[in-house]
């Protein structure tokens, strides 16, 4: 009887204990968890920062992979030259990149040099943070056939030194009127570049090519045109305020466009939209008296582009006037509009389309929503791909400033670490080589990876070159040259 008791109580107890010893040993793995973050813009860096904070007691390494030879994504190539304070985040990113558990690996094109599935050999967890780099198009006649019609992505790339846009050659000295289609922050950036004083721009990190072209520009009127009304604008207040305060530039908003907005409507709005609308109202209603104004910017609402006209260069744009659909609410952010039959032709010598971006499917194995241009995911976990996550624009759509991406990265990091701690990822005990394996594979495919130290050499070169011209930096525009300078 005694032996029965022993067998029934003691043995299971022993078994449980020995099992727990085994499992304890295997969680105290000598091999760290390898995390790979694809994309080195704000999404990638802020996620890494949060992962570092949450993984202090779990051995982890984080590699930040970047397609370009240089880090920082849109902070380098998107943020306007006259917004150097926004680029201060680079100092935070540098501290993250130089953390002992972090490694920056540049010049690796995931989906080309190496497939996403292959990456799993080296990493336990992969986070896609590569943003949205393709511009939306209008799909109207003349858009692709006429000269001097650019997407904002290319125009911004041109003044910001994106190698692929170095040869853009916008012509700005044969016309005094430009049309920008779209009313987001990127549209305002383009307007500001066209209207700012050259002396101000000369002190920024705008490329020399762009500076020279803008110096000879004869553009004096920049018209931003949107399909809907003032309550549907996408730009934010800081950027709008900046434009209203630009030296020598007069804001030309129509009072009539704001007649339907009353205090009741305004009071119902959330604070950011409320303050933005109030600023537009104030700008429209205040008698502008900048007597020395030589340049002008306009907001024209309720106009959808139908056709671009011209012989070789663009000469005008036909717009169809729109109105809200039946029962549409003037202040509805998702307001739908329909044409009302009127067509208007606005002359111009330059057209910039700034109507948004979408992401690309970098690998066919990635579940992708082609219509929305985002990776299919539920709460940042990529559909049917355990161990794969996404953060930033590629997971939620190309909207929002850096602050929103920063906020989101807290949640994504928490989600990933929850999955780690609750045992939802089954491969964590496998030993993986992380960056060492990836770099060796890349080398075998004739790709030389760029480390953060390599970037710093190029960084120093660009900074020194800029200082000789009174600029914070002069960006190198040629990929080959960039690679050479990272090796010196």
């Amino acid at each position, binding site marked *: 009887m005694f032996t029965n008791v022993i067998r029934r109580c003691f043995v299971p107890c022993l078994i449980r204990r020995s099992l727990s010893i085994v499992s304890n040993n295997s969680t105290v793995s000598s091999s760290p968890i390898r995390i790979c973050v694809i994309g080195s813009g704000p999404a990638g860096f802020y996620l890494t920062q949060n992962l570092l904070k949450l993984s202090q007691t779990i051995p982890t390494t984080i590699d930040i992979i970047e397609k370009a030879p240089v880090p920082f994504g849109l902070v380098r190539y998107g943020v306007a030259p006259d917004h150097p304070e926004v680029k*201060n985040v680079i*100092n*935070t990113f540098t501290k993250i990149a130089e953390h002992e558990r972090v490694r920056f690996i540049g010049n690796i094109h995931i989906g080309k040099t190496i497939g996403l599935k292959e990456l799993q050999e080296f990493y336990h967890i992969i986070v896609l943070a590569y943003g949205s780099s393709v511009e939306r198009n209008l799909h109207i006649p003349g858009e692709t056939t006429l000269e001097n019609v650019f997407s904002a992505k290319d125009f911004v790339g041109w003044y910001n030194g994106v190698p692929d846009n170095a040869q853009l050659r916008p012509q700005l000295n044969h016309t005094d009127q430009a049309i920008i289609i779209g009313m987001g922050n990127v549209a305002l950036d383009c307007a500001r570049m066209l209207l700012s004083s050259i002396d101000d721009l000369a002190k920024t990190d705008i490329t020399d090519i762009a500076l020279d072209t803008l110096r000879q520009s004869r553009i004096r009127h920049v018209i931003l045109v949107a399909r809907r009304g003032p309550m549907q604008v996408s730009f*934010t*207040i800081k950027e709008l*305020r900046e434009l209203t305060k630009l030296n020598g530039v007069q804001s030309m908003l129509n009072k009539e466009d704001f007649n339907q907005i009353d205090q009741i409507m305004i009071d119902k709005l959330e604070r950011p939209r409320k*303050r933005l609308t109030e600023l537009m109202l104030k700008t429209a209603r205040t008698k502008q008296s900048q007597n020395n104004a030589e340049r002008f910017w306009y907001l024209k609402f309720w106009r959808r582009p139908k056709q671009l006209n011209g012989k070789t260069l663009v000469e005008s744009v036909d717009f169809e006037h729109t109105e809200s659909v039946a029962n549409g609410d003037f202040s509805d952010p998702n307001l739908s509009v329909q044409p009302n039959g009127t067509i208007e032709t606005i002359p111009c010598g330059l057209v910039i389309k700034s109507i948004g971006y979408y992401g690309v499917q970098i690998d066919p194995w990635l579940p992708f929503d082609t219509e929305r241009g985002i990776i299919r995911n539920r709460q940042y976990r990529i559909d049917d791909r355990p161990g794969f996550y996404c953060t930033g624009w590629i997971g939620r759509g190309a909207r929002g400033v850096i602050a929103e991406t920063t906020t989101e990265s807290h949640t994504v*990091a928490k989600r990933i670490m929850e999955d780690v701690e609750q045992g939802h990822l089954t491969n964590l005990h496998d030993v993986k080589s992380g960056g060492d394996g990836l770099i060796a594979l890349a080398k075998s495919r004739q790709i030389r990876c760029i480390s953060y130290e390599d970037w710093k050499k190029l960084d120093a070169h660009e900074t020194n070159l800029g200082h000789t011209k009174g600029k914070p930096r002069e960006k190198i525009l040629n990929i080959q040259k960039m690679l050479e300078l990272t090796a010196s």
Partner: protein
Amino acid sequence: MYRLIIRSIFNQNLFLKRYSSNSNNYINVTIIDRDEKLINAKAKIGSNMLDVVLDNKLDIDGFGACEGTLACSTCHVVLDSENYKTLPEPVEEENDMLDLAFGLTPTSRLACQIIVEPRMKDWIFVVPKDVNDQR
């Protein structure tokens, strides 16, 4: 001998005066971080509250990303309403950035815009929780 004693007393007084006037450059404030930990910080008069966080080497994630240039909202702090009312109005540009702050309250300010004054002795500044802390 007497001269020596008198001189050393005189010098002591001077030393004390100098020391106490130096200590007048700092006041004590309390900062409550995101884990609700109370931190006593020395705040230099004339500096701003972001400087105070940095000078005291407080470990608050992402605080002050744009380094005090009104290009972000990461130095968001909440004050009690009595103290808040005594601060000078925020400039428009600060309000523009506060628009983006997570968990904005009627007594929120950006730390980089609060200039430390002697009257702020023992004030409490709360660093509000971030998104993931809400869960």
